[in-house]
């Protein structure tokens, strides 16, 4: 299966708390009136300019091994290296919310509307994550239709540039997936354009395969340790098809 998915921008509208967190505002702090007003304005702009699109393509474990290895620059041992061979299904993916939002952010900064530009940037980042969530759910539904899921099936996504998977693996990922078909290009520095894009692999399997420790050497440099929260969420068995967040 290889599919281009047009995602409704409504489905990618980010939660206020996610956007404000990206603006450095903790959940337990009440944002100022000005901040709330900026958020609302940024959401209006997001609705006007976001053009979310995704592409997803199944990949076998041996084929993914090539993508994972990339330019042979990965850390010696990584969580994904342990996980992907235990997967039931794998799929490469890429999503973007398009270039117009980025252009609007640039325009806002050029016209000295820094606060709104910065808020829209955070809104766009959170919206891109939501777009990846939608695509991930789309892949889950596809597997479900093929009767390839069960009550323990969980999908999590992993991206080059995180947790020891070197960003240069983007080259192989692009070679296999061709996100150019939805307007995402890869620069020599392995940066994607449009900037608000996410690529990686969806790993579907028993929730236990996604559990790993945070004592890898590179974990010392990680400021978020957000993997802990992801693992906590997927191990909460009261939740159906749990996912959330990528590394």
């Amino acid at each position, binding site marked *: 299966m290889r599919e281009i998915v047009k995602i409704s921008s409504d489905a990618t509208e980010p939660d206020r708390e996610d956007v404000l967190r990206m*603006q450095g505002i903790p959940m337990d702090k009440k944002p100022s009136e000005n901040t709330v007003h900026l958020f609302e304005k940024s959401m209006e702009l997001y609705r006007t300019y976001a053009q979310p699109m995704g592409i997803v393509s199944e990949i076998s474990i041996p084929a993914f091994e090539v993508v994972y290895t990339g330019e042979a620059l990965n850390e010696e041992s990584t969580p994904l290296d342990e996980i992907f061979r235990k997967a039931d299904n794998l799929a490469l993916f890429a999503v973007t919310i398009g270039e117009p939002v980025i252009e609007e*952010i640039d325009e806002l900064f050029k016209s*000295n509307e820094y*606060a709104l*530009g910065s808020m829209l940037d955070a809104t766009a980042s959170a919206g891109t994550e939501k777009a990846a969530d939608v695509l991930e759910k789309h892949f889950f539904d596809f597997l479900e239709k093929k009767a390839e899921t069960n009550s323990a099936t969980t999908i999590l996504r992993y991206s080059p540039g995180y947790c020891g998977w070197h960003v240069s693996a983007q080259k192989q990922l692009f070679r296999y997936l061709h996100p150019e078909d939805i307007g995402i290009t890869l620069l*020599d*520095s392995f940066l994607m354009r449009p900037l608000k894009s996410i690529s990686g692999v969806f790993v579907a399997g028993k929730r236990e395969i996604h559990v790993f420790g945070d004592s890898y050497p590179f974990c010392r440099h990680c400021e978020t340790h957000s993997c802990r929260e992801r693992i906590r969420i997927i191990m909460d068995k009261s939740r159906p098809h749990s996912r959330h967040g990528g590394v």
Partner: protein
Amino acid sequence: MEILNEISRYLQHGDCEKVGSLTRQAVEKVPPRDILDNGLIAGMNVIGEKYKAHEIFLPDVLLAAKAMYAGMDVLRPLFLKEEMPTAGKVVIGTVRGDLHDIGKNLVGIMLRGAGFEVIDLGNDVPPEKFVETAQSENATVIGMSALLTTTMLVMKDVIEIVKEQGLSDRIRTIIGGAPVSAEFAHEIGADSYGYDSAHAVEQIRVLIREVNGRHGDREKR
């Protein structure tokens, strides 16, 4: 003076129109330098302190910065005859191969708000350009930003050029961006590391003080 307190207060609320109109009123009776120091910069200093204390957050700082510029726009022509007061000159940019410039822009906004002169080279900046500009503009600090583990290595190239050209005693370097750390800054020989935009401003102030001290100059502010 009450009008300067008013300017400071409205700036802290991010009210551009009020700051602009009060600054226009103030120039009738107060020297521009006093308006700058005791109205605009005083207001930004309060904003900086509140931000550090987590009493306010980024959006409020950016609104205040915009209000600061509204006041500066009124004052700038009045400083044409004398040199515009500056806390120092800084060249900033996102390094070659990297197009992320939000973090760098925020540092630029904060620096200008704190009275620094900023030359923003934009993104995807080649290493040589940082150093050439710092030399030609007589800037004291080069600030580099990167958001990728691949592009952060370019920062080292800039630092090496500064060293090779024997400029280390008068040009200081500072780095920032999601993948970099104080440890990385030390490893590549950067003079400083800013973990966020407010911290970067503080660090740049220290770097400029060091260089000015070494050269026996007096800081203007």
